[in-house]
């Protein structure tokens, strides 16, 4: 059963087109992430799903029902906001009960639900406090509790962790994931943080300028980004984009890379898509961790400019084909700035983009 389907949804204000034909389809129980830089339209899309804004054209289906003209309260959804949006004059219990009161849930059942939710989120001791007496993390918990009390078909999270400090954000991220695994509900989650997107999502929709750039599983998006934007947005540090020419050497098609030593030919010949592009300019996309330090005659010699130890890995900055290149290497293998490093590329994982269309070609 489809939990949420968005069909050709557009949104315009006069000549400003915020959303330009969005199509998304997810199954019940899936965790959908809408991710993109600010101004990409992800929050507008969220508001349209919630019914807080009207789509200019297109259809929104929740649980196989067209909800375009259904009021937010009748869409069977619950939403958690970035600013938590707790009702300031009510204590936690009243905050959770407010929606149920409005829907006319009997008092006894309300109490039962409140107690169950409070236990689930370990906030029994907070029930009689006002939001102003809670910390950021506790407010976030209450906001989630308020959503859980509704037991909706669809949960909407609008950048829920953005106002928390780094440590708490990681904790709450894990907690949200646990909650999802336990409750098996369908979740739509808006974020601008690609790490949240990768760690939480079953499906990710990467958005930019009101268009979905790529829709797929996190691993799919990470390994086979549809275009340069997705490749650079997902992953930290970002993917390296190395301009090069596609050349043929004997039977092999490949690219030539040069650091500060002899140019090295790197064969990409198992990819049929590249055959008719020999001689053209392409962009080779290499993730920092796809480099390995190894002494060999095929290794690429690079001058180390800066090293950034992060603990488990060390980022090595150098230059290849005239552009900056970052390699993530084992701390013991990294050498000091000013020295030279031999790097081997994991060719199978590298991707190739067309510099004109910016789309991935192989």
């Amino acid at each position, binding site marked *: 059963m489809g939990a949420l389907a968005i069909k050709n949804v557009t949104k315009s204000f006069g000549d400003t087109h915020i959303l330009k034909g969005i199509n998304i389809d997810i199954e019940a129980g899936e965790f959908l992430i809408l991710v993109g830089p600010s101004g990409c339209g992800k929050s507008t899309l969220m508001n349209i799903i919630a019914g*807080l804004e009207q789509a200019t054209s297109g259809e929104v289906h929740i649980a196989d029902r067209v909800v375009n003209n259904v009021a937010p309260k009748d869409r069977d959804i619950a*939403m958690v*906001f970035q600013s938590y949006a707790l009702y300031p004059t009510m204590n936690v219990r009243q905050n959770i009960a407010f929606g149920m009161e409005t829907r006319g849930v009997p008092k006894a059942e309300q109490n039962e639900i409140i107690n169950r939710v409070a236990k689930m989120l370990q906030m029994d001791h907070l029930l009689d406090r006002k939001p102003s007496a809670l910390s950021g993390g506790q407010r976030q918990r209450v906001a989630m509790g*308020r959503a859980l009390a509704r037991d909706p078909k669809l949960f909407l999270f*609008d950048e829920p962790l953005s106002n928390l400090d780094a440590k708490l954000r990681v904790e709450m991220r894990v907690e949200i994931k646990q909650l999802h695994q336990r409750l098996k509900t369908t979740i739509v989650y808006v974020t601008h943080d690609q790490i949240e997107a990768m760690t939480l999502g079953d499906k990710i929709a990467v958005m930019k300028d009101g268009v979905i750039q790529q829709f797929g599983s996190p691993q799919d998006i990470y390994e086979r980004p549809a275009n340069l934007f997705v490749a650079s947005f997902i992953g930290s540090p970002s993917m390296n984009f190395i301009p090069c020419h596609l050349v043929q050497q004997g039977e092999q098609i490949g690219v030539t890379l040069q650091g500060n030593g002899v140019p090295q030919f790197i064969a990409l010949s198992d990819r049929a898509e590249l055959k008719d592009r020999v001689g053209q300019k392409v962009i080779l996309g290499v993730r920092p961790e796809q480099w390995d330090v190894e002494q060999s005659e095929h290794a690429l010699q690079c001058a180390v400019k800066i090293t950034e130890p992060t603990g488990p890995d060390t980022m090595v900055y150098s230059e290849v084909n005239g552009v900056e290149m970052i390699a993530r290497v084992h701390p013991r293998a990294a050498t000091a700035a000013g020295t030279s490093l031999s790097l081997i590329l994991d060719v199978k994982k590298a991707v190739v983009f067309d510099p004109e269309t910016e789309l991935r070609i192989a």
Partner: protein
Amino acid sequence: MSTPNAHYGFAERWLPRLVLAPSFLLTLVFLYGFIAWNGYLSFTNSRLLPNYEWAGLVQYATLFENERWWVAVRNLGIFAVLFIGGAMAIGITLAILLDQKVRGEGAIRTLYLYPMALSFVVTGTAWKWMLNPGLGLEKLMHDWGFTSFTFDWLVNSEMSIYTVVIAGLWQSSGFVMALFLAGLRGVDDSIIKAAQIDGATLPRIYWKIILPALRPVVFSTLMILSHIAIKSFDLVMALTGGGPGFSSDLPATYMYSMAFTRGQTGLGAASAMMMLATVAAIVVPYLYSELRKDSHG
């Protein structure tokens, strides 16, 4: 070693006091001094000129037996309840409507706020013309052919106090609206969205969530409006002059006519003390609770 410091400290200590002294002195003499003087006069038999011979509570006794005083007190009750309640209701309604992201909000806001720029005397005079049966609304309706239309509250001693209420509301509702609009703008938008998803109707959202959150604004507005109501003087003087007869007198106009036109200074002083007591009864508990809250952080 300590001498230059001490010298510097002397100027530091005395300069603020020196600068504040004139206004402190003026306030002391012309505010608290005159309150005390007025308080003393209310216990004397002063007529046209002050008479400092102690006469006890005789002026208060006269005041409480005076029918005109009770008319003024009753009028103040009517005026205060309708004026404060009405201005709050109209102001809050306008603010909520303006908060719905209407087009041309800036212009509308200015329009509603403009009456506040006029003095009560101008408001009173303008409304006197509009409500005058021979000049204003009633004449207009008659000229349009609705000859059975009557609106003579201004000259009707039963209804004249209500014309004061109308003019007061016209003047102050926009001000209340501006106060509440500022408060509403401070409310997080997503709270309204959350309540919408929770299924609350717009009136319920405002009544149960937003207005309770604006409690401080409600209290300050109540304070401002009630002291405007109690000391209302110019509006009545310009609009009805307290008439017809003394049917629209308020304590302030009563005090004025006793003290300055009828040569009953002692009686005027006693009525002024009653007004002071009324204001104090409202302001002191409010200040007390506010200041106490501050010191508790």
